[in-house]
């Protein structure tokens, strides 16, 4: 038994090694790493993701622990980024804020990706009046400035984080639908799809097994960049008072509550601002890099899509 186990283990290790080597030596990785900006993007994103995951471990204090008599303390050894207007540690709030921002953007991107892909696949493959109806609906949604529509929706639903997610999701899925539909239209003409149709493969199977894997690449790139857009949107709506309720350590809320202290306590607004900037920049650079690596010919599709 143990012998078998160790052989199995060995083979697993061997496969892993082989995979690792193939990834390490792949041209794609090489190309990705060859551009320094890509590495910077990856670094920024990793920092944010890691600090979100390990926030409870790294954070010197709880995000909502107040100390009224030590409010607006400048950065020191005890509070590396100072304290805010209620004496809370800014660094701790930023770390916990990373969790909120990432959770929201992941959720929103996942929802928009799912809706957008479904609509795009249906519209593209079904064609005819279904396509027409769906795409005209997408056009209507796209005709609104995205953030404005989100503002209206969040305003109607009332201020909290769930409603912000709904607002951003309602606005965000259209671009995915468009891109997917476009790709589906071309892939549909490929011979392997025709072959599958002739062999009587069910429609659902054709769409999911043969078409979907061939159209997702540009969407993955877009989704990465969309993370940045959603983080920015969340912060923006929260800044306007439509998002997180106090005392949630959301970055946009921190900015908005701290802006009265800009010239007396610069650290209260500038650190959240920096956090937003680094995250957004990171995701944008990463998205750019991924696009070059995954689909160098297809970049026209992603460029300027409602960003």
């Amino acid at each position: 038994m143990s012998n078998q186990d160790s052989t199995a283990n060995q083979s697993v290790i061997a496969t892993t090694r082989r995979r690792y080597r193939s990834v390490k030596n792949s041209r794609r990785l090489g190309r990705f790493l060859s551009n320094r900006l890509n590495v910077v993007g990856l670094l920024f994103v990793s920092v944010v993701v890691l600090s979100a995951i390990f926030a409870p471990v790294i954070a010197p204090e709880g995000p909502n622990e107040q100390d009224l008599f030590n409010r607006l303390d400048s950065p020191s050894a005890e509070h590396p980024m100072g304290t805010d207007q209620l004496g809370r540690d800014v660094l701790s709030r930023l770390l916990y804020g990373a969790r909120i921002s990432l959770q929201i953007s992941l959720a929103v991107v996942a929802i928009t990706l799912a809706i957008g892909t479904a609509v795009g696949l249906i519209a593209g493959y079904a064609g005819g009046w279904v396509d027409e109806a769906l795409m005209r609906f997408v056009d209507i949604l796209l005709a609104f400035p995205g953030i404005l529509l989100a503002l209206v929706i969040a305003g109607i639903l009332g201020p909290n984080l769930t409603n912000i997610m709904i607002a951003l999701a309602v606005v965000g899925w259209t671009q995915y639908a468009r891109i997917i539909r476009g790709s589906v239209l071309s892939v549909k003409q490929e011979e392997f799809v025709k072959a599958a149709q002739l062999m009587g493969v069910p429609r659902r199977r054709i769409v999911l097994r043969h078409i979907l894997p061939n159209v997702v690449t540009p969407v993955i790139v877009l989704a990465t960049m969309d993370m940045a857009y959603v983080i920015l949107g969340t912060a923006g709506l929260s800044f306007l008072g439509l998002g997180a309720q106090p005392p949630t350590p959301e970055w946009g809320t921190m900015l908005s509550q701290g802006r009265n202290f800009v010239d007396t306590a610069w650290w209260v607004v500038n650190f959240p601002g920096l956090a937003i900037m680094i995250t957004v920049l990171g995701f944008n650079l990463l998205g750019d890099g991924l696009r070059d690596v995954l689909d160098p010919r297809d970049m026209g599709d992603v460029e300027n899509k409602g960003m």
Partner: protein
Amino acid sequence: MEDSITRRTLLGAVGAGGFVSIAGCAGDSGDGGGNDDPYSSETKTGDGSSTDNNSSSGNNSTATGGSANVALSMDPTEGVWQVYGGVSPYYTNILEPLIWVSEEMKLEPWLATDWEATSDTTWEFTLRDSVKFHNGEDLVAEHVVWSFEQVLNEWSYAPGWLHVESGSVTAIDETTVEFETSDPFPTFPGTIAHNMIAIQHPDRSRENTEPIGTGPYQVEERTQGQRVRTSGFDDYWNGTPSLDELTFSVITDPNTRALSLQNGDVDVAFDPPKSRVEKLDSNGGTNVTTQLSPGAVYVGCNIYKAPMDDPKLRQALNYATSQSDLVETILSNIGVPAKGPVAESIFWSAHEKLPAYEQDVEKAKELVEESSYDGEALQFHLSNQQVDGELLTQALQQWFDDIGVKVDIQVTEEASFEDTVRSGEPHLILESSGTNSGAADYLIYETFHSEGDVNERLYNEEGTGIYNLGEEVDQLIQAGFQTGDQAEKEQKYEQALQRIMEEAVVVPINYSEYIVAASDGVSSMDLRPIPEMTRWTGLQTGQ
């Protein structure tokens, strides 16, 4: 490929730019000065010419000249002021009411020299002689009647507010006006001691936005949403205005108001942000004045919504709170720690006689234990327009949490806030009260009487309410409201407020002060408890 490189370069540039601009923010934000309003230069020129004219102060017999620019947070050209020719009587001193309000919140005879109740529902006002309008005509009783008709027809809430119907204001002779109230209304004189009930000349023009009033300053130029430029009115009945020119600029953002003052674009700025007060006061060139207003901030407990219906829990919240800590820290010492819901500056506020809940965490915890509170999160609502509201609620949230009471904060849009409160949905509500007139009675009536504005809906529908303790307090408030006798009013209201605080219907926070920052050359500012009633007649800007 070409394309993507551009994009990447762009991103890099944006990043670098971001760092630079953040570094810029970190420094002193004095670069707004380059953004010169054409108007500010006018002010500066005016200052220069007034250098040798700053010897006298107060009400002068001769104009000393000069000009000043006052930054307001409100827009005096808003649509609601069309009835007065498009310029607000608030702050501007262009139009005046029959009665003004003094530094002690007492009624001050103004365009009317005397008034008396001739029966339960009739009032006779005697007008001041030789008051001139800006067009040179004398003020007579007909003008007062006309002005009241305008107001009563303009604002649908005016008849209910003043208890006067259109057509029940009559001129008895040239200098006597009779008002007939729709029901006995002892606080009528105090109610009309309000800027919104100003006297104007019938020749004023709504279409051409030309107000005609009796105030020390008359409108020269009105720019919608931006400013009102006025000049001194030499025939003013109450002294000669000291300035040739006085401008009111609309600057809605508090930080921008403070910065404009620092840059010398304006000479006076109302309500700069609290966080800048210290800096404005210690910096050379500017100083800060605070003035107690008839306002108060407190947390209202919805005493009909479980578990807030338990007085023990409400008292516990009071014991958990330290008013002086809040004022000292969050409010930067602007304001006075409160013991009740009515501002100390109002004579019946009962401040001295109210029970004091000193912060006592142990006692508060015991009271929570004894109460019916079972760990549910209380809904704490506040309006997004409440100044410092989010900071106050978060600090309270922490203190309530310390005694084991969970609180969820909900910031609500100002427009829907009032409605949410009246629906009885929240447990706790951050309230701020205040009055713009000489009559403060409604502060207690509308909030704590069962038929007051806040409680009325639920009282009529379900026999409950929000802040109304019931029969006993209703009667005390009613008695105080109906009497014209000051001592009796004081006694009744004090008893009512004592009951309210014993039952801990509210958690008091502070009595409000407002802040006015001015450049050092500005003197003789005549601030009143009601900021809208600030007098500008004697203002000096000698430098």
